[in-house]
């Protein structure tokens, strides 16, 4: 099988591997780079569980060929904050009970982060629009939206990028 | 023809008039507005309606209110302290990812407290056996079992600190 070398900047770190033409970014992130915080929900761009940022834009990793991500920057939820240094969004999700099974959470936070990178304050409608590609089967979305609102509705100076 | 009963619920006295076929769970949820106790199946299979009646676990959906006239009842609302401080079991549930949708949780917490009262050093098998009557659709039970274990440890610690 023909393979190609790729380099991806994953959460700020250069990562290399060889891929076939048909491997997706999702495949590579989970199976080669051990970035299992990126979830595989549907593999067809319907659920948003695999949301990552590609050069700053929120995308479905399952709909990007690994080759198409070569030379680009990929940010997963681990690049947004850590357990020791969580992002305001992550803290808000935990504090506000916006997590039940947790499967949609990484994608939700990534989509929300992409929104906040674009505009540091957002209306409820804008928040709901920004996460309209991320499905949650547990929470009914209410607490997710509230958690994002709690970060997005503050004055720009009070939350970090 | 309504019957007069007396219940002590979470330390509060209630005088109630109920039809003889009224279920305890309906008195708790509807008369007394204590909706922490859940109506899950109505047939005694899910454990969502677990209550402590005179300290013993009972299914509210299979108990007539008139049958527990004069009893002291503990619901989930009576588990935390009056000032709101959480019970060690409740804390352990929160700390061990034992709560997702939360629907089984009141029943689970009461059964956990019942277990720890009888057996302060339960094994994992003891814990799993004791919650066999409480169904959880979300967590897969592992978090709940961990929580009860952790609660047992905290309780022992707490007792040791209190006594030592």
């Amino acid at each position, binding site marked *: *099988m023909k393979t190609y070398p790729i380099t991806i900047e994953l959460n700020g770190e250069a990562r290399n591997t060889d891929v076939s033409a048909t491997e997706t970014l999702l495949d590579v992130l989970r199976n080669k780079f051990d970035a299992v915080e990126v979830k595989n929900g549907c593999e067809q*761009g319907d659920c*948003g569980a695999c949301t990552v940022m590609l050069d700053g834009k929120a*995308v479905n990793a*399952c*709909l990007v060929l690994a080759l198409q991500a070569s030379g680009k920057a990929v940010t997963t939820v681990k690049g947004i904050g850590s357990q020791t240094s969580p992002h305001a969004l992550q803290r808000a999700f935990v504090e506000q009970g916006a997590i039940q099974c947790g499967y949609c959470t990484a994608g939700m936070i990534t989509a929300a982060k992409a929104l906040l990178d674009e505009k540091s304050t957002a209306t409820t409608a804008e928040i709901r*629009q920004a996460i*309209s*590609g*991320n499905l949650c089967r547990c929470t009914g979305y209410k607490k997710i939206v509230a958690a994002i609102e709690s970060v997005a509705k503050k004055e720009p100076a009070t939350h970090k990028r | 023809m309504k019957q007069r009963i007396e219940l002590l619920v979470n330390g509060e006295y209630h005088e109630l008039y109920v039809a003889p076929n009224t279920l305890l769970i309906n008195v708790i949820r509807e008369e007394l507005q204590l909706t922490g106790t859940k109506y899950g199946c109505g047939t005694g299979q899910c454990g969502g309606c677990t209550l402590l009646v005179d300290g013993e676990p009972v299914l509210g959906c299979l108990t007539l209110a008139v049958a527990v006239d004069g009893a002291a009842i503990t619901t989930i609302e009576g588990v935390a302290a009056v000032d709101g401080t959480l019970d060690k079991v409740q804390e352990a549930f929160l700390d061990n990812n034992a709560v997702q949708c939360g629907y089984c949780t009141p029943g689970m917490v009461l059964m956990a407290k019942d277990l720890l009262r009888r057996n302060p050093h339960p094994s994992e098998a003891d814990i799993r056996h004791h919650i066999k009557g409480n169904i959880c659709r979300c967590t897969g039970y592992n978090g709940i079992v961990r929580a009860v274990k952790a609660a047992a440890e905290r309780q022992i610690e707490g007792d040791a600190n209190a006594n030592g």
Partner: protein
Amino acid sequence: MQTVEYLKPADMNELAALMQQYAARATFIAGGTNLIPDMRSGRHRPEVLLDIGDLKAMNAIALNDDHLSIGAAATIARIAADATVNAHCPILAAAAAKLGNPLTRNRATIGGNLANASPCADTAPPLLSLEALVEIMDVKGQQRQVPLDKFFRGYKWTDLAPGEVITRIVVPKPSSGMQGGHTKLGLRKAAAICVASVAVMLEKENDHIAKARVAFGSVAPKPIRAYRLEAFFEGKAADATLLSQCEPILQQEIAPISDIRGSEAYRRQVTAVIFKRNLQELLWS
């Protein structure tokens, strides 16, 4: 998925050379939002993938004297947000904003939406009502422009021969008097495949309709222009009776089917409703 070759031309010259080399064996990929699921399901088994998504020339959005030029690889998200598109053909921006969801919009491209040629393609009805053309490059590097209504030949059948690629979409600048409306009906507010859609461009002169361009989506094997409906409106006084009079003509123009998203009867009824709403909005508000 099976062994596939992947090539990423750096510029249009390299693209042309690769197209000549691989001819009908080439499959183009940009956003991949249709192609990748199709590859995964086995519906498409490409031999050679030519990645055109990052080509500068195919990403350019530019306003010229008499037309707007949109690179085929321009993403739907970019088109929805673009100031030039919003200024000169807002119904295209509006339709783009309703396609898929925010994540797929960041990858999906206008060229891909048209080349895939689903009868539900969200950008097609506005582009049809704007009388847009697609510019196609063939395997010999020759360009041709095809009016969009001729480009769509039938169900998922376009003017593209194997190995050909859409390079840009040309949208003639609407005259200043033209106003447009667009409605997309779906079963959800996002991530919805269109159940029925309408795009209308109208020009009024005094109280008469000088020019009308109407296009429908999801109600025929391909996105369609409603020529007879347009002819009916042109020259007529903007009178409320038009609404009832146009209905039989509208019903003749469309040929919806019953599927999991709606019945034929529902689609017939609701297409008329959304068309009339747009008409009322444009004529009398």
